[in-house]
């Protein structure tokens, strides 16, 4: 009894260990495949026009076909090839992720480091600002933008950036605050070295790696949140190839044509998982005490 239990435990441990080793490679493979699919979508997609939103002539006859050799993912309610649409959706997903994360990361790092380095009034004002924006939900901003300007990808992107930067600012601030108290920063400041030089050489170098890891881990969450804004119809126009929108279109017929919601859902899940896996393994790799020879390029 005991030995069986021990064997099961041992096997589970080995599986876990193997999985942990594979995490980074699996995550990277997923993200690379999705990126390649997105870049090559005009070539790979069997029906590129339908993928972009064009409704075919015999739409009624082709509507809601289950997966078959011609339409491997089936067709949606308007007779468009679902595979093409999901492929084009990968492109807009990656665009959303990259723009949102890179922009909010830059804003967040600048604000967070300034708050930690320049102390005093600057610190207080910036912290209030950060707290203010942390408390605003992205969907509310997206709703306001949608009502004010109209539908489009920028609604999703702007809505998300408005709130996400504050999280990065907060994390950066927390890390930078402890770095700023280190002797090598304090003494460099006292000896009158240029502030920008100190920030670049000492503060940023020690702050960016953990924040960057957080950003990579967050890419999955950004995708999920962007998709959910699109899913409730606040973001891009309804015909666009976007996973959230495709799922929204498939929602009324989910009982008779489940593939319409299922395939974009699976892609969404796998992409989010890929980013989380990369972020998670980077977290361990980038810890200065865990790594041996790992040079960053800044």
């Amino acid at each position, binding site marked *: 009894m005991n030995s069986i239990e021990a064997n099961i435990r041992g096997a589970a441990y080995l599986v876990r260990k193997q999985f942990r080793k594979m995490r980074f490679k699996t995550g990277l493979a997923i993200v690379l495949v999705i990126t390649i699919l997105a870049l090559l979508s005009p070539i790979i997609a069997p029906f590129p026009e339908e993928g972009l939103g064009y409704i075919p002539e015999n739409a009624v006859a082709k509507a809601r076909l289950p997966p078959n050799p011609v339409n491997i993912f089936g067709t949606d309610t308007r007779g468009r090839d679902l595979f093409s649409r999901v492929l084009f959706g990968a492109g807009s997903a990656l665009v959303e992720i990259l723009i949102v994360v890179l922009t909010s990361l830059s804003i967040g790092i600048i604000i967070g480091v300034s708050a930690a380095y320049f102390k005093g009034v600057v610190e207080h004002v910036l912290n209030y600002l950060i707290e203010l924006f942390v408390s605003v939900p992205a969907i509310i901003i997206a709703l306001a933008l949608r009502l004010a300007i109209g539908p489009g990808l920028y609604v999703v992107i702007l809505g998300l950036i408005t709130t996400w930067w504050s999280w990065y600012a907060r994390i950066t601030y927390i890390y930078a605050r402890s770095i700023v108290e280190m002797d090598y920063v304090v003494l460099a400041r006292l000896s009158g070295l240029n502030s920008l030089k100190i920030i670049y*050489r000492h503060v940023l170098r020690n702050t960016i790696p953990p924040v960057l890891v957080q950003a990579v881990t967050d890419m999955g969450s950004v995708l999920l949140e962007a998709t959910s804004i699109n899913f409730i119809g606040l973001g891009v126009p309804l015909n666009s190839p976007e996973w959230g929108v495709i799922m929204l279109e498939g929602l009324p017929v989910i009982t008779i044509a489940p593939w319409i919601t299922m395939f974009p859902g699976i892609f969404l899940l796998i992409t989010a998982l890929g980013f989380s896996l990369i972020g998670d393994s980077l977290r361990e790799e980038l810890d*200065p005490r865990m790594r041996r020879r790992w040079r960053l390029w800044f």
Partner: protein
Amino acid sequence: MVLAVKAVDLKIGYMDEEEKIYWAVRGVSFQVSESEIYCIVGESGCGKSTIGNAIAGILPSHAVTSGKLYIYDKKVIDNEKMDYTGIRGRVVSYIPQNPGTSLNPYETIEEQFYHVLSSVYGYDKRKSVETARRYLAMVELDPDKVLDYYPHELSGGMQQRAAISIALATGARIIVADEPTSSLDAHLRLQLIRLMRKLRDTVRLSLILITHDLVSAGRICDTIAVMYAGKIVEEGRGSLLLTEPLHPYTQMLVDAVPILGLKKPLKSIPGEPPQVGGEISWCVFRERCPVAFEKCGIHPPELYIMERKVSCWRYMNHGAR
């Protein structure tokens, strides 16, 4: 004999947010000549680190100063004014107390050398590596290995020695070392003491050593100054001061040092040092002094007796000048 450091009635305090000043150093005068090892000992909070920071030019911006401090010919502290141009990093260098927080964990030792040397002398990469090799060898570290290492790959003693060699590489004539031996093993401490003596003899370095460790201080110092509550209470030749302490505080401090292998009862000094704060017009040690008398209500002058300076009324009538 060239004077490296000279302080005249130096006072240093820290100002809090309500602009109240807490004096950490309450008027000290001392001289350190070239190639002298000068020790400042005393218990925590007596102002010894503050003096070290003042010499090294790294007082924080809320520090308040009064009196004068000269480094070679330059007047670096002139009452409120501080001017360390051309002194900080070039003439005076600083060895920090904790090497773990003074080396950037994301930079190799080579880069740390480069940053210091390029900002002080504008050296290029190749020249800074050459210099680094020379100074790492001086502290008995292997340059081929250590240059590529990150600080966490070195042990505490090696980090300390790397920090020392960076401080030396600036070519400074005066080194301020703030408790450099506090986190080291006994044998590393001995190694460091030998290194410092060697440097003093070879490069004619003046060393200002701030320490708790009376035993090492006695072994390596030319002059020891005992500080108490922001004042220097006794100053004299190292070995003599520890074997024949004159000031009651020094006597009690020497008594409190445990001796290895000797079963003597450990003595502590009863009471607490006075709070850092306003002016004190009486003898700073009066509250804890076992032999205090009425005269101790006035702060004693510096008396010269047996080739040393003592601030104690007891020696007034014992041939002191």
